[in-house]
């Protein structure tokens, strides 16, 4: 088990290095100039700015400086917010995205498992058809539509009530998180529902279910003890990357609900060619994703001994 974990960790470090390198190369290929702004500046100011951000050196040298700094955990200063360190940006805004994301994952996982199991039980009957229709909607409609509708719903709810029941946007209390986390988790919930459904259906025909039925167990007991428990494995597999994807922030949801999360920085940095923030957030997100995958892999080994052997 230790050797297995170690092997995965080393592979993880290589993956993060690869992500960092690929991003670095791609970023420098993007046309445009990170130092350029509305007002044109003189050659002298330009030279000073380049020196400040180390852009005056050859790209290969910049790359090795970046690698060295990355090893010490320093991503430098943001180009757009010139007195903020990238580390501070991640430290300030990741917890917000993570809180929102964990709540979203909670909604998605409970909803996905519940609806998925339900559709499998009622296969090809009305509840199945309705839920699967909603699932297709959840997967195909982009999140900005749900975000806008969700917010409009709150505006009108408050207006009907004549007072603010649930805040329309903003951040701070639990009620602020409700709608955005539901919107954020919707896509994942739809995905998990489908996964859960197919995995449940596969298991229904397994021999051990037939045995359980033959020996006269009650359908509820079969459902909870035998079906659900075995069907949930694939859900856990995708949950790892999904947690990483969701907790690093949904750009659209954060924008619409005015949430100070990392997702906004992640996307806007690319638009504004904010080199240091691009590198910082990508490496952070990449490392986080890799870590989640490793954790899931290890967990998998505990749940299913067959994985460990291979």
């Amino acid at each position: 088990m230790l050797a297995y974990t170690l092997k995965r960790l080393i592979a993880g470090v290589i993956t993060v290095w690869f992500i960092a390198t690929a991003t670095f190369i791609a970023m420098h290929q993007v046309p445009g100039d990170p130092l350029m702004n509305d007002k044109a500046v003189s050659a002298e100011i330009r030279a000073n700015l380049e020196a400040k951000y180390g852009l005056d050196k050859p790209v290969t040298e910049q790359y090795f400086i970046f690698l060295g700094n990355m090893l010490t955990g320093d991503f430098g200063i943001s180009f757009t917010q010139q007195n903020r360190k990238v580390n501070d940006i991640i430290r300030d805004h990741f917890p917000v995205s993570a809180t929102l994301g964990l709540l979203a994952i909670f909604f998605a996982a409970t909803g996905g498992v519940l609806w998925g199991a339900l559709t499998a039980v009622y296969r090809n009957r009305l509840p199945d058809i309705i839920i699967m229709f909603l699932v297709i909607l959840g997967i195909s409609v982009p999140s900005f539509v749900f975000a806008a509708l969700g917010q409009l719903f709150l505006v009108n709810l408050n207006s009907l009530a004549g007072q603010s029941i649930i805040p329309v946007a903003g951040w701070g209390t639990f009620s602020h998180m409700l709608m955005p986390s539901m919107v954020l988790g919707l896509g994942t919930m739809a995905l998990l529902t489908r996964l859960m459904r197919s995995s449940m259906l596969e298991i229904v025909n397994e021999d051990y279910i037939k045995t359980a039925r033959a020996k006269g167990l009650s359908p509820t007991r079969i459902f909870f003890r035998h079906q659900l428990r075995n069907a949930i494995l694939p859900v856990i597999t995708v949950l790892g990357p999904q947690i990483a994807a969701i907790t690093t922030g949904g750009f659209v949801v954060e924008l619409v609900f005015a949430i100070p999360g990392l997702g906004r920085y992640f996307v806007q940095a690319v638009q504004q060619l904010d080199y240091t923030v691009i590198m910082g957030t990508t490496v952070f997100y990449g490392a986080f994703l890799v870590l989640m995958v490793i954790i899931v892999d290890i967990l998998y080994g505990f749940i299913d001994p067959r994985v460990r052997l291979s």
Partner: protein
Amino acid sequence: MRHITVFLTCLLCQFAHAEVEATSVDFHSQTLTIALTQEPPQLNSAKATDQVSGLVLGHLMQGLVRYDRRGNVIPGVAERWEMTETTATFWLRKDAKWSDGKPVTAHDFVFAWQRVADPKTASQYAFILSPIKNAAEINEGKLPVTELGVLALDDRTLQVTLARPTAYFVKLTVFNTFYPIRQDFFESRGDQYAADAKDLLYNGPFKMTEWTHSASLKMIKNEHYWDRENISLNAINVDYITADTRARLNLYTDGKIAFTRLDGETYKDALSQRFRIRRFTTGSTFYLEYNHRPGKPTANLNLRKAIQYIFDPDEMVNRVLATPGNLRGESLFPVWLNGVNDKFRREYPAPQAGYNVKEAKRYLELAVNEIGPIPPLVLLVSDSPTATKQGEYMQGVLLNKLGIELKIDVQTFKQRLAKMTSGEFDIVGAGWGPDFDDILTFGDLLASWNMNNRGRYNNPEYDRLVRLTMNSTDPKTRMDAMGKAQQILFDDAVVLPQYEQGVIYLLHPKIKGVARRVIGPDPDFTYAKIVP
């Protein structure tokens, strides 16, 4: 079941049924809540360049002079001043204080301006100091910062030596680049200066007490501000930061914010909710800039004239932009600029081509004779929906009326700037907002030495007129020169003015005294008060 459906439908439909009591304005505590479109990127006044930072700084800081509610220059930290051809002297008021209670002195201005000029600061607004003696040389690294022509004769007297006679120098000092910075505080913060609420010292009507990045900030009345008696608001809370106009409209509807700007889409929703929609002309001009570099088809005068005669500014304003408040684009110089005694545009009406297809075709024929068949032209635009819409409109006009093919090159902000600078375009959709209250803020834009002249227009006569305006203090001489410059811009079809930008916005009816400004922080809530 049916009742539930009806209820749910109601919740998603557009019309609000009852009004939520607004918490965005509070009469008893005189508190106002607003949203910002983005996190202020830079609150170091020496380096700030963007509007959001300008808006926040404008409430927190004060320069030598300031604007009153109507936009007239009135005393700020300086109680009086005196101008000559070569100097400007400011006498500072005794009671001007920083938020820690210490007096604002002339040294604070000297220090701040030296920071701006210092090439190590790399301030993008260093050029605005150019009327001050040696500013340009210092910024180029040729002289030490101590050589800057600004001197504290004593704690309360500031003397500026000018590089050239500058008629508008006093007005210039309203701008945030000219705000004071106190040396001991600045040095105590190092790199962290202005990074957080506690890392900034305030001398304006408000001071910032909380700043949660990307989420909120709180400005409260500065008890050390010298004119605090005339400030009604006790607090301005920025509780939300989002660029999404629809989200901001929803917050306004929900009574959470007291001000929001609308765009083409949210305009219709605001109308259907029967909000009172206000309008304001921002003072910025939007125009198409031609590439005048040799070899480009747009370097041909007759081609530019042809496009000039085919463009209908009324159609642009009414059918393409289609939101209230925009004005016809008639000149690079917007209508609000002052002339000798009246507005410049009234004293020197801008020549108009008028929509004339026949004339346009005549010019096109001349152009074809000179440079052969017109190749497809590249129109570079930004990736905003309005810019794309305008581009498509021009595409249609040129193709249908002149048979010229226009390729639209949509680029994000940085990419567009890079292409503008390197000249990879034939025509580019551009705009210009004023930095200071003088015609030169637009006039020198197309001077051959100006780096923002991305089309590289080069006309010695135009340059001569700009220099004349820069170096003269006589209003008549200056405006005559700019009147001639306006004529050249038309005759040479240097740029194609499209519109003067107007914005539409919602403001809670209980707030009075909000100033909208062409120059300076906009909107300005300094003199606002909340009525019961």
